[in-house]
């Protein structure tokens, strides 16, 4: 239930503006890959090209290939809707649907596939997904209550439960802890550790300690200056990137001597 991603010669544009230039990266299945780098270096933009969320923004487009186990996401005839149901996403700010109960939030993605599901199956899936997101014990007595009534950290785990309920191949996380307190952050990081047994996880983070804690491999993105495209500087085992990077820019960044 997890696939690898290989990106070849990817250029990402907003209209005429080249935002991210010439990325080549291989993301292993059943592992956690972290993207780090300074603000505006294009790591979030690049992440959003991995499930074709980038093109939701008017004028945004992509050149190059993103291969999910060899299948090009940007190939002719590929439906972005299908891509997104295979590659789930968790956003920076927790975004459960405010008009839905906790239960309906978890089932939101599954119901899209128009499968008729018995109540028993749905209940089992809700429990399994919430268990998977380490949230079941906290919400099992109030599944019919609105998801927006939960704390920020719980909402974020609800969003993760919603993402894994559709059983994706890959889960993308765009700074999932940046709006959370340290305890909620720890809960999410523990969860990421559990998730990699089943899923390919890609996480964008501003927090280098977090990247060091949760990821197997780390990719460092950087930008030469305002208006210049972001670039992938180097990618490698997390331990290597943090202790013995090959590039000077990486070393400056991870040691805090940046800028």
């Amino acid at each position: 239930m997890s696939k690898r991603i290989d990106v070849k010669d990817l250029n990402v544009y907003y209209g005429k503006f080249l935002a991210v230039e010439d990325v080549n990266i291989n993301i292993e299945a059943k592992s956690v890959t972290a993207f780090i780098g300074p603000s505006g270096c294009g790591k979030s933009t690049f992440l959003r090209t991995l499930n074709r969320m980038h093109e939701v923004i008017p004028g945004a487009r992509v050149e190059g290939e993103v291969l999910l186990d060899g299948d090009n996401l940007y190939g002719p005839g590929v439906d972005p809707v299908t891509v997104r149901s295979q590659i789930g996403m968790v956003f920076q700010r927790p975004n459960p649907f405010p008009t839905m109960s906790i239960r309906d939030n978890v089932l939101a993605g599954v119901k899209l596939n128009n499968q008729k599901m018995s109540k028993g199956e749905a209940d089992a899936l809700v429990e399994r997904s919430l268990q998977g997101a380490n949230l079941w014990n906290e919400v099992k007595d109030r599944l019919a209550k609105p998801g927006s009534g939960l704390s920020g950290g719980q909402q974020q785990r609800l969003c993760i439960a919603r993402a894994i309920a559709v059983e994706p191949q890959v889960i993308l996380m765009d700074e999932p802890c940046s709006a959370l307190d340290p305890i909620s952050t720890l809960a999410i990081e523990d969860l990421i550790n559990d998730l990699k047994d089943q899923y390919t996880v890609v996480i964008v983070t501003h927090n280098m300690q977090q990247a060091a804690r949760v990821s197997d491999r780390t990719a460092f993105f950087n930008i030469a200056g305002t208006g210049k495209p972001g670039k992938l500087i180097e990618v490698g085992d997390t331990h290597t990137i943090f202790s013995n990077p090959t590039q000077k820019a990486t070393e400056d960044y991870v040691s805090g001597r940046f800028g």
Partner: protein
Amino acid sequence: MTTTSLTKSRGAGRAGDKVFSGAALAAGCLILAVLFGVALFLVVQAIPALVASPDKIQGGEGFFAYIWPIVIGTVIAAIIALVIATPVAIGVALFISHFAPRGLASGLGYVIDLLAAIPSVVYGAWGAAFLAKEISPAYDWLANNMGWLPIFQGPASATGKTILTAGIVLAVMVLPIITSLSREIFLQTPKLHEEAALALGATRWEMIKMAVLPFGRPGIVSAVMLGLGRALGETMAVALVLSSGALTASLIQSGNQTIAAEIALNFPEASGLKVSTLIAAGLVLFVITLGVNMIARWIISRHKEFSGAN
């Protein structure tokens, strides 16, 4: 630091606060006073008609017998207008907010807003002189093919000046109100929720069902109620379009009347008790509109927990 520096406050800032809260309070009180004044006027002026002996009221059977056919006529016309206008308005609003290319969207938005700027007497003239004539063949068809339904019972009006025509004209008039309000609401849907839906593998329409419509629901209800308010109170268009008469079930025969049009058509020549009767009719319209607004509030508050406002 002494304690006085804490208790002393900047004079100018405080004065600004006081002026603002005073002005806000005055504005709030003024609204209440105007509303109360209108209500009081209606009640006081209506009392003679309400207490008069039945045979003195127009029709000779008392105020209730006089008012209920036109209450129902009013409601029928408003319902026709909303049934036609609401789906169209929501569709247009969604098209503008989520489907149309940006250039087309703003152009279409202006055109819709322009519809709201046309005076109601112009709509009335259009309905009476053009629409009624053009639509009467359709009424014939309805009478022939669906006449078994009481609402389409024939013979259809030859002039086309029926309550259905009036309802259609009203629909065109309330369309811009519902459309522009819904459009504003739809545009305010948080990007976050739209992206959440898309990232789960929703198509654009599924995203709209999942994020946009539930989020906009209270706004849509408000928009429809504002439209309903206009449809209930609209006077000139109905007065010009409708060839009024007694209450009939058939929508395609001439007949029926609305409160507002009844008042407008009869007030200039009324005197004495007749004036009171018409004002009492106005009071009834006032109460209906008030009731509609309260129901709307109730509908919106029922789902407060899930509104997204928290």
